[in-house]
Structures are given as structure tokens and as C-alpha cells.
């Protein structure tokens, strides 16, 4: 059974349909990349999975349990998915010590935590993401962008999720920081056996981290497949266009086919 299963999902804001007929599955312990351009509906899927966007049709299942609706069972299923946000600067409460933000993540476990137990857990989580646990009392302002992103990852992990959704988590970071965050996600996946849905517009990053890739455009899936196979021989012209637009270091860009918009 897939860790995260999206079936024929439709998302509508008011009368505007942003996602229609999307199906995808994340196998346990794997990373699935969701790539596409802005407005293609990637983030809406992430939001719908955690209950921040309205599901108009279809189903989202975590470990077989549906997350759609207001029932307690659906709410509990939603808590097994945690989301990491794009901008580490707005994803942490500027007035709340980072340790408390991470502690808040434990709410998602649905268990009661003792004060001491929670404190220990926060330290453990911060260590796991390579942030000095002695700085748990500091406010987010005292941390760099990369450190903040690691703290938001710790907060997501605090909920002991089965599925982690990373929504453009490296787009707001400098490249030198991006690599540390990507390495951390890989490391966590291996040690914790997480299933990850990795959303990004950056094809190179998605390629690096994903076992399988789904390409989105205009609210639907265009193409999907195992990373190497898909990128080596894209069947859809849009995937090929995306691939052709990625700049390569030291390789002069050519504009023949892209010159006419």
C-alpha cells in the first residue's frame, strides 16, 4: 500500500478549478518529485493533503486512510502528513522561541506529552536537523535562512509524520545552503524511513532527490515515471521543453526553438 495516495483529485477555489483529475502515489520510504511551473497547481495539492485547501473531488489517502472531510478519522489521517513551507522567514513565529515552535509540532502526534519529555524530544529533533539544541530558547531572528529551514523541518518531524511534503523548500535559499537542506532531507529519509513528496519548479533539484517524478502543467499531470527513465526519454513535449530550459554550467544557452514565445 502506498504511503500517500492521491486519486483523481480536484481542487477548486470558488468556481476556479486549479487542479483536476490528478492521481499520484508515493511508495513507502521513497521520494516522489512533483515538478511544474508556477500556477500549475503543485502547492494546491500539498495544501489539500494537509487540509489547508478545499478538496472538490477525489480522495487523498495516507496509509489507506482518507484525509478528506471533517470526521475525526480524516483529521487524524491528516496529522500523519506534515508540510514544510517554502519561506523559512515567514514559517516561524518571530516572537516564539524556536524550541516552542518545534514543541508545537508534537501536537500532531495526538498524544499527551509531559513537560520534561517534550523538552527532551525538542532537543533530540534539533540535534537531528543539526541545529544546536542549546539554542532552543532563541528567537528565529537569531538564525540564518538555512538554519531556520532546518528548524521548520524539525517542527514537521515533531508530528512523527509518515509522509513529509516539502513545498519548494529550497527556493528561498542560497545555493550553498540549498545543498545542506537537500542532504538533510535525504539523510532523514534514510534514518526515519520517511516517504517524501518533494515539490519544486527546479528540475535539477527534483532530479537529484527523487526516485520518481511527476510533471504538472495547468492543474493536471502531464507525465510521470522513474527519474532516470523519464528525464532520459521524455515522452511529452512539455517535459522536453522544461528539460531544455534548464541552464547548464559552462554551456552556452541556445535560443532557436525558444526564441518565439
Amino acid at each position, binding site marked *: 500500500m502506498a504511503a500517500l495516495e492521491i486519486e483523481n483529485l480536484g481542487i477548486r477555489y470558488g468556481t476556479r478549478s486549479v487542479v483536476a483529475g490528478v492521481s499520484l502515489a508515493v511508495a513507502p520510504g521513497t521520494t516522489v518529485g512533483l515538478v511544474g511551473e508556477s500556477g500549475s497547481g503543485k502547492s494546491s495539492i500539498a495544501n489539500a493533503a494537509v487540509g489547508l485547501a478545499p478538496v472538490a473531488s477525489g480522495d487523498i489517502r495516507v496509509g489507506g486512510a482518507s484525509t478528506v472531510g471533517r470526521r475525526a478519522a480524516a483529521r487524524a489521517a491528516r496529522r500523519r502528513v506534515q508540510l514544510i513551507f517554502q519561506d523559512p522567514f515567514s514559517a516561524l*513565529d518571530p*516572537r516564539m522561541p524556536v524550541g516552542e515552535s518545534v514543541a508545537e509540532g508534537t501536537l*500532531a502526534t495526538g498524544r499527551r506529552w509531559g513537560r520534561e519529555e517534550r523538552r527532551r524530544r525538542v532537543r533530540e529533533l534539533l540535534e537531528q536537523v543539526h541545529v544546536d539544541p542549546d539554542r532552543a530558547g532563541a528567537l528565529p531572528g537569531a538564525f540564518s535562512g538555512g538554519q531556520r529551514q532546518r528548524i521548520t523541518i524539525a517542527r514537521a518531524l515533531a508530528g512523527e509524520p509518515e509522509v513529509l511534503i516539502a513545498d519548494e523548500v529550497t527556493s528561498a535559499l542560497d*545555493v550553498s545552503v540549498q545543498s545542506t537542506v537537500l542532504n538533510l532531507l535525504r539523510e532523514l529519509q534514510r534514518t526515519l524511513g520517511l516517504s517524501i513528496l518533494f515539490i519544486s519548479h527546479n528540475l535539477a533539484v527534483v532530479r537529484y532527490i527523487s526516485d520518481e517524478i511527476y510533471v504538472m502543467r495547468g492543474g493536471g499531470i502531464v507525465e510521470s515515471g522513474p527519474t532516470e527513465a523519464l528525464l532520459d526519454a521524455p515522452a511529452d513535449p512539455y517535459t522536453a521543453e522544461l528539460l531544455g530550459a534548464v541552464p547548464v554550467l559552462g554551456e552556452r544557452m541556445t535560443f532557436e526553438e525558444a526564441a*518565439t514565445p
Partner: protein
Amino acid sequence: MKKLLSPAGIAASLGLALLLALALAGPALWGEAATQRAVADRWAPAGSEFHFGTDDLGRDIFARVMAATRLSLLLTLGATAIGVGGGVLVGLTAVVLPRYPRRFLVWIMDMLLAFPWLLLVLFFTVIWGATATGAMLAIGLSGIPNLTRLVYNLAASVSEQDYVRAARVAGAGPVRVLFRHILPNIANPLLVQASASASVTLLAFAGLSFLGLGVQAPEYDWGRLINEGVAHLYTNPMAAIGPGIVIVFAGLVFTLVAEALTDRPGQGLRGVAAAARAAVLPGAAPLPARGAGAGGPGDGADPGGPGDRGPALAEVADLRVAFPDGAGGLVERVRGVSLAVRPGEVVGIVGESGSGKSLTAMALAGLLEAPAVVSARVRRFDDIDLDAPLTRALSKRLGTELGFVFQDPLTSLNPALTIGRQLTEVSRTHLGMSRSRARDRAVAGLEAVGIPEPRRRLGDYPHQFSGGMRQRAMIGMALTGHPRLIIADEPTTALDVTVQKQVLAVLRRAQRSTDAAIVLISHDIALVSGFCDRVVVMKDGEVVEDLDAQHIREQARHPYTRGLIACLPDMRSDRTRPLPVVEDGVPAADPLPGGEPRRPAPGVPTADAGTRSGGSAL
């Protein structure tokens, strides 16, 4: 605690202490003198015996003013507390309510907001009669709609933040979100507003009592004392001016408290003080004298990296850009950069946030304005010395020969003007073209950047263009002046890769057809190396390396450049191994000296943001 030590903080603390002392000790010290009648001394003018004179019953007005402190402040605080308390209660309720009840509540409050507060006060006075408590309730209650609006707006903007969404994803309920996230984040602006409204409330009371609607005899507050004193304005002006001075003083203290509570430097007195210091400093700062040692523009300077061929079109040598750090000092963001761009050359500047790449480009274009402090041995465009004051003719030339393309086309285009109007601006103001010729030229510009139906689209507003089209229009705009140098600062960062490619194609074609030089600034080393002839790598305000774009992989020597190249995943990265990491100490992510995080909190102007908005005025 630092806040308390600022000038405003110290003044506010002293003022508050004085007011508090008067309120506590006033009635005991002056109570007797304030009520003691001495008909023989009635209407005595102000003097050494009676500082403010006496009233018609011979009571010492100064003593009455002092003794009235307690009542006046209590009424003010009471009314402010009612207003703020009510506002917080209603505003926060509105935030957690479901959609329709919330709209209804906000709607009611907006309607009340439209009523003049004095009318509300009169209305309440009719209900409760003209008493001190009635006036307090009336002023307090009439303040609620205003504060509700404030609380609601503040809370609504906080509740849309990612950290609140994250708390909801973790399963935090509305009450928890309210108390743990929303309240702490709106507390500061709310306190500021409360102090500010206290000073307004104080005046309102004075006004009401003056009108005879507030405190009734034999009770008296400052407003009532003014009311009584005004009758004798010509014989003893101090009888009215005395209480007036105290009201102004108390109002000032409340304003100062608000000022001291504000935690955004640059918004209050501290900002003014800092700006004043910065304005004085540049002259005094020991910056290297411009032109010293260089025989003339260009000659003597050796800014080129590899292959310094031919005279440069634009160049800077030993460029330094500094900003006031808010504490009287200067922080240098660009430290001795030399860069030359030859005609028709495409140069890329690459670096991470805070590397000074944008500032270097802005300085190259002469776009940096105060508070930036710019110094350079050479800073020129063609034969224009950018360090000297520009004549009209020269700035006109700069306006046409230098094109600047900004990162976010939505903020660099004026949303209220049509694209056509903005595209014709340069031609009409700088080249003195007629309206129709300027339009023809704008059409040609849009056509050149591949926008279909250019003539019709000139009538569109910026929001009717997509992001890629706006950026192309910006390039079109830069082209209308026949530029010889186009500086593009992260022109495609906000765009998707396929659109990025279209925009770059337009830029490349423009460069080919006009033979303009281009300076492309980006954080993406792959992009820069693919588009430019030469790549300048910057870090912490210095040029680290200057490389031939096509051989960047082999030529890069500096560990920072090599690190940047290595840690960037590309379509050939080995997926089975962890990405190389730029070693600690080298990465640009560590805080600046002084412990400031590299990216300040939203709302605080950064060096980049400040100059960018300054520059977009061009």
C-alpha cells in the same frame, strides 16, 4: 531593555514617572490649597504666590491643576482601557468567527467607524447624562470600532502567515493560535496604538469638559479648569494656559511612550536621529579621495580581469558602498570592487544574498542614493563621471543610453499607468519626441520583445500582463532609449524556467541588434555562465574571481567559486551521493559581523530594498 535606553525611552520613562508622582501625591499635597476659598485673593493674576493665579473663589489654580492630575489621568486610562479592551475582544472574535458572522461583525464595526466620535459621545451623554463616568464610558466605547478595525487587520495579516498555517497543520486549535501566535505578534503595534490613543483621549476629555459635557462641578479635571480659565483670558491668561500646558505635557508623554514602544527603527524619532547622523557623517568619514592617483577616467585603473581589451564603456574602480548601521556607524557592503564593461560585452555578476552584486550594479548605473555612501577611485559611464553632479544634458544621456531591468517587473512598473504611457516616458521626456512618434517607437519596442498585438497592448495596465510579458515589456522599455548598456538585476528570478528562457532570448536578441553591453546579475551561476561572456563572482562585497564563462568549470580556482559550482545540483549530479557542501566559514549564510542576520525581518528596509526602491524612480 535596549528600547528603554533610547532618547525617546528615557524621556518617556521620566515623563511617566512625573505624571505618576503627580497623580499619586497631587491631591494630598495640593488638595487643600486647591479647595481653600479666599475671596480676598480672587482673580489674582499669575505671580510668585499663585503661579497660575486664582479663580473667582480665590482658589489657587496651580494647586487645582496639580490636584486634577489624578482624575484626569484616571479618566483617560479608563476610557483607553475600555477602547482597547473592547477593540481586542471584538477584533479577535471576528478573526476566529466563521466567514459570514465575521463579515457581519466587521460590517457593523465599519458602519460605526463612519460615525464621527463626537456624535457618538453626544449620543452616549444623552443616555447617561453629563457626568465624568458617562464621559469616560462614552469616549471609551466610541473608540472601540476604530481599535477593532486595527486589531482585526493586524490579526488577519498574522493569521495568513505560514507559521500560523504550520500550527494549524500540526493540529493547533483557534484558541491556541490566538494566544500563542496572533496576540504576541500584534501586541507591539497594539500597545503603540493604545498609547497614541491615550493622548487623543486625554484631549477628548479636555474638549468635553471644556464644552461642559464631561466632569461637573465641584469635581474638576484639566479640561474643566481650562473652561473656567478661559473666561478670564484677558485678565489672567495663565488661568487657561496653565492647565493647557499640563495637557500638552501629558499628551507628549503618551506619544513618547508610543514612540519608545515602536520596535521599528526608522519609523520614529530614532530613525530621524539616525538619518541626521548619516547625513552629517559622509563628509567626515575617511573615505579615499576620488580621482587621486588616477590621471583621468579609465587610465591608470586596471579593473579588467582576464583579457582587458579596448577601452571600457562603463567602469568602476575601487568601488565602496556603505550604509548607516542605525547606531551612528557605517557598514560597508561593497568593499573595493573594480569592474569594467566593454562595448557589446555580456558580463555576469554572480553571488549569494548579501554579496553586494546588486549594489555594484546600481553604483555602476549611478542609481544609488542616500543613505548609501558611495566612493570610488573611478566611476564613469562612457565619458560621464558619475561621481560628479550631473548636468541636465548628461542625465538625459544616462537616461537613454543606460537601461535597467529590475527583478520584479510588477513593482518596477507603475500599476496605475498604462504600459504605453510608461513605455513612451523615456522617449518623450529624454528625447523630446512627439506623442505619436514615441508610441510608434514603443510599439517597435514591444514587437522586438515578441509581444503580440503591441499597439493594442499599449493600452493595457501592468496587471493585465503575465510575469514573463511584464519582464519582456521592461526590456522593451529599456530598449526604447537605444541603450548602450543594459543592466539586468535578477531579471528572471521570479519567472519559470521556460519563461526565463524566453526572456533571456529577448535580451540576447536585443543585445545582438543594438550591440549594447549587458550586465546580468544573478544568484544562479549556471544561468550566468550560459548567457554571459564573462562571469564575475562576488562574495561579501568583494570580487572573488573573474572567469571566462565557457571555461568556468575548468578555470575556477577560488575555493568559494568551486564550492558554488560543486554544491549546485545539475542534470548530471550523482544521485547516489550527498551533495558537496560549502564549508562553514565560507558560505554566505553566516551572519554579518555584528550578529545581524543577513536577511532582516519583513518591513525593515535592507540595503538592497532601499536602493532598489530608490532606483526604480528612474
